């Protein structure tokens, strides 16, 4: 009978929460993968930091039979060869690591800082939004003055388009994971005083230019290639994926960003962006990537403690604003 005996359950093992870390659930995902989940279904960057800490420790342990890991928001998927590394052994090792990996606070996470130029409300995303209004939905409430930025302002209780730009540039954006499409980053603001949120397109947008930057829920993404999409767009940046590997930044593989990168947006004009994009493709542009910094979780948590009141104030401002805004 399915589900009636221990061996057939989806959950392999559970660790209860302690003062230092959330509960851990080990789940079967076939005989070649397991999924490790942390805590409850809440978005908490400190959980994501802990996952990177564990990922680091796991890589250093050099476990024979472990093929690769996929850190994500509150989980990590492990790809392994169950014949070289039996599942029970893998789970036992992971449980032991939970005791040795320093608690979130004492972690230093290797993290690159990547500066990317962005043209806010640029003409390329504007053109695709115009097509959406023409061919997909005329009365989309998330499109004001031919773009999504004014809507982002209203939805978050910000005064105008400029304040949206200021907010997006006021914080570094933490790349919590990459996926769905090669090189597509899922980024969250490290400074929650600027944590804007939006609902997604309805219906989704059939067109999005390569390099477009948008937000869905609390998450900012860069579209690595021209594709359909559902995020509210606010600008366009330089390539984060290049099939032809035309720039030294793409020498190892066509994907620019890595999990645990921090992205800082630098506003430019459409013309500046266009010429920078040309220099990316002719190989003369050098991406600004600083690799020597690490994210110290303890000092980060200290920083969060100091801005609590401001974060709560912004959340209240957002909650009030949402009441007066239509959802797509």
């Amino acid at each position: 009978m399915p589900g009636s005996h221990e061996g057939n359950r989806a959950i392999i093992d559970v660790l209860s929460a302690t003062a230092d870390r959330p509960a851990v659930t080990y789940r079967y995902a076939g005989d070649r993968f397991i999924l490790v989940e942390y805590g409850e279904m809440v978005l908490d960057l400190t959980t994501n930091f802990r996952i990177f800490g564990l990922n680091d420790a796991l890589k250093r342990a050099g476990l024979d039979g472990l093929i690769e890991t996929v850190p994500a928001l509150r989980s990590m998927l492990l790809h392994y060869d169950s014949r070289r590394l039996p599942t029970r052994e893998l789970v036992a090792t992971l449980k032991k690591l939970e005791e040795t990996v320093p608690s979130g606070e004492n972690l230093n996470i290797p993290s690159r800082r990547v500066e990317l130029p962005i043209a806010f409300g640029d003409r390329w995303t504007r053109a695709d939004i115009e097509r959406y209004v023409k061919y997909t939905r005329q009365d989309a409430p998330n499109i004001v003055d031919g773009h999504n930025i004014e809507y982002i302002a209203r939805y978050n209780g910000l005064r105008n388009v400029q304040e949206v730009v200021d907010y997006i540039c006021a914080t570094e954006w933490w790349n919590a994971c990459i996926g769905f499409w090669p090189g597509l980053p899922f980024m969250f603001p490290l400074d929650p005083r600027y944590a804007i949120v939006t609902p997604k397109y309805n219906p989704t947008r059939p067109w999005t230019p390569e390099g477009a930057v948008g937000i869905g829920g609390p998450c900012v993404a860069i579209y690595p290639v021209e594709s359909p999409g559902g995020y509210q767009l606010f600008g366009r940046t330089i390539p984060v994926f290049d099939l032809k590997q035309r720039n030294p930044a793409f020498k190892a593989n066509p994907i620019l960003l890595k999990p645990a990168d921090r992205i800082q947006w630098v506003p430019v004009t459409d013309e500046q962006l266009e010429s920078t994009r040309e220099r990316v493709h002719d190989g003369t542009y050098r991406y600004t990537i600083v690799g020597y910094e690490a994210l110290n979780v303890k000092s980060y948590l200290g920083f969060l403690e100091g801005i609590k009141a401001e974060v709560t104030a912004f959340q209240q401002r957002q909650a009030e604003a949402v009441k007066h805004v239509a959802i797509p």
Partner: protein
Amino acid sequence: MFEVLEGGIQTTVQDYPGRVGYLDLGTYPAGPMDHFAFRIANLLVGNPQGAPALEVTAGGLKARFHDSRAVAITGADMQPTLNGTPAPLWETFAVGPNDLLELKFVKGAGLRAYVAASGAFDVPEYMGSRATFTVGGFGGFEGRGLKKGDRVRLKPAGAPAGQVGRRLRTDRRPQHGTHWEIEAMRGPQADPDYMTAADMDFFFSHAWKVDRNSNRMGVRLESHKWQWARKSGGVAGGHPSNILDNGYAVWTVNVSGDQPIILVADGPSLGGFICNATLIYASSWKVGQLMPGRDTIRFKEVTIDEATALAASIDEAIAERSIERR
């Protein structure tokens, strides 16, 4: 040289196990949809099991060889011919300069055939693999399916005579039907926390129809009204199938809203929907032979120990001991 006269529905160069090691950068492995037939084809012509070979989906391939090779065709029966004369399936034969190979559209059971040639197809390595990733348009031959006029290079090969007549023992040949039983394991997100026990009982007993809209990214099954263990996805979204984005195992069953989709070779690496069951190493090849709009599948639940035993037996079967001479 392999000169393509007709590419068919979708013919791609693949290798095995594909582009492994890039899941955390968002890249699924690509590679053959039916790794059993693919690896046997290479074995028959004396190549390493993972060497680049062709995956022919639904048929319609017409091509000319420009030199002497040992060739083997495995998988679905597309009534292959060489210069108009029937060519064998699961058995190595010789081709010479100007020989015309033709695979018709599949009529009976199965969906994909594999064509291996001694020496192997020669395409550039991209991110450590020669497999075609159709979604990203990279790997394989120019990142796409073959079409009329393409000339695919082959690596040098010895005289074909030594390989000719090698065939897979009849008792080792997979049975292709139209109603499939596919072994799978419960999870990662099943009962009791995401679905109800009744949902999972239904999942493991229903004969699921394979949707027409299936491809190398996902094999879609029919929608179903699930009971769900949760009322909503909370912060992750309104629907109870929503979760905060997590990595997707390859060959997992993703329940997106009401519809189950088996995520296959070129699937998305990460997303925000639950996966209630995952196929095992030994059963995943069957998905490559499912005919969209026709076939049905029942998932048979197995334990990790059963899955591991099945994995060992399929790998033991893909070996010289399964090959005999005509």
